[in-house]
């Protein structure tokens, strides 16, 4: 599975309240949830983001509460993947379960600039800069994670499997 897109950059410890403010926890509809993506950042991200874009962030992306809406908001706003130095435990799970590819690579936040275009080969574990061809390697996700992502999320995956 290959992904390519333009990068939005964020720093360390982007928490779930920044990604999806608590006051919207009553919403579960993906369209509605997506409207508030990154609202806590106050940078108008929801209006700027294009389908297929990528986020590159620093350490501990998604720290804070276990709210699934944080991962849902990013996925349904059209983000193709989140690449970060590291992720919080619950965000990582929630992203995979909602079919949003997440890639943890130490040092990626220093390696990439905002606006750069990246190509990500999820199964091979390669991130490539489209302009320069420079590459960064990561350990690809095991088959199970890929299967969940490819199925469109954990519910779909297990629904199929249980048939």
């Amino acid at each position, binding site marked *: 599975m290959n992904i390519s897109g333009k990068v939005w950059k964020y720093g360390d410890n982007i928490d779930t309240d920044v990604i999806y403010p608590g006051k919207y926890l009553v919403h579960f509809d993906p369209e509605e949830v997506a409207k508030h993506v990154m609202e806590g950042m106050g940078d108008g991200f929801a209006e700027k983001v294009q389908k297929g874009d990528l986020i590159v962030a620093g350490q501990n992306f998604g720290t804070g509460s*276990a709210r699934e809406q944080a991962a849902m908001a990013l996925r349904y706003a059209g983000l193709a993947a989140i690449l970060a130095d590291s992720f*919080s*435990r619950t965000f990582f799970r*929630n992203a995979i379960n909602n079919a949003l590819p997440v890639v943890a690579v130490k040092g990626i936040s220093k390696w990439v600039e905002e606006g750069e275009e990246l190509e990500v080969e999820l199964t091979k574990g390669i991130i490539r800069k489209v302009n320069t061809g420079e590459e960064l390697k990561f350990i690809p996700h095991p088959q199970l994670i890929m299967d969940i992502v490819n199925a469109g999320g*954990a*519910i779909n995956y297990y629904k199929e499997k249980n048939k």
Partner: protein
Amino acid sequence: MGMNIIEKIMAKHAGKDSVVPGEIVECAVDAVMLHDVGTPGIQRPFNALGTDKIADGVDCIIIPDHFVPANTVAAAENLKITREFAERMSIENYYEIGRGGICHQVMMEKGHVKPGQIIVAPDSHATTYGAAGAFGTGLGVTDVAIALGTGKLWFVVPETVRVNLTGKLPEWVSAKDISIYLLGKFKDGELLYRSLELGGNIIHEMSMDSRECLADMALEMGVKACLVECDEITDAYLKKALKGEPYELVTPDQDASYEAVYDVDVSDMVPMISMPHTPSNAATVKEAEGKKVNQAFLGSCTNGRMEDLKIAADMLRGKTISPKVRLIVTPASNEIYNKAMEKGYLKIFMDAGATITNATCGACVGGHLGLIAAGEVCISSSNRNFRGRMGSKDGEIYLASPAAVIASAITGEITDPRGVS
């Protein structure tokens, strides 16, 4: 290479001989705990899964505790959804209000936790089950629904950090103080995503109540699980709680590997406190002394157990609390409530001027039965002091041991329990 406790549990549940940190495995789940927030929460993903029954082999335990008895109509609706789900799924272990208490305590005392099990819940403090050697962890509602409907879940095998608590525990220093000390020590996310394994002579000298406090509070260090090494004390507790059901203790291999091993000597430890507004904001109680308190809260799944109530009763016998303080006592379960009544603790609390509530999350989660107003200060034996956790976002919460909570209730200001006898 040998395995540590969580690696052994995960390998077994994944049907493998061994696992290593970083590996992703699919594990069978033994039990799912649900409460009155989680049960309504899982309805949507559970239905989306297209199943209408709980997977074979999964034990589902439902314990309404957060908003009980219902304090709003919305809570009543959620409790109704919870009750109806329990009925529809023919859940045997449904603990109606008055017959259970705070979920994690009920899980432990009613024998729903066995060493070596994997137990998940839509509640972060499921790490408490590690006190009996089980891998307990909190998850989002999608994960919990999948565990319930399929009996399986994927997990990343975590790195494990081992902490050996050694030395001699000074008087007036408890498991809670050790927890707050460790929170201060590991505040830079050193334990994030990790499994914390606890051992050392101090652990083996500790009651189950204290071990449960440690495993509960460990969650605030960002751990995925906290596994306490089993011993004769675990064994004695399990024999009673499981009423003869078979179980096997899990211990780490001699040559198990860890990301890091720390020896923490507690001999010089002093009563600790978490300053507002985060549990890792650790200080000594001495440093916070003199701060006026409006409310003192003794309760929660962290410190609402018999041992905690005993400390409080011993300190309050024949005494009254400061007229400026509301002391709220919430026994962690009905069983504890009853025992405390038989032992005469409740009378001591009443005579001292305390208010006793039913066994509920109540004040701990800022739901009901003890919210604080703007500008008010609460010293609490619970596990979280986030801004607004217990009411107004302009209030302040300090976390400390039951002894420090009671000492402060007596004097009306934050007080080191070593000074009150």
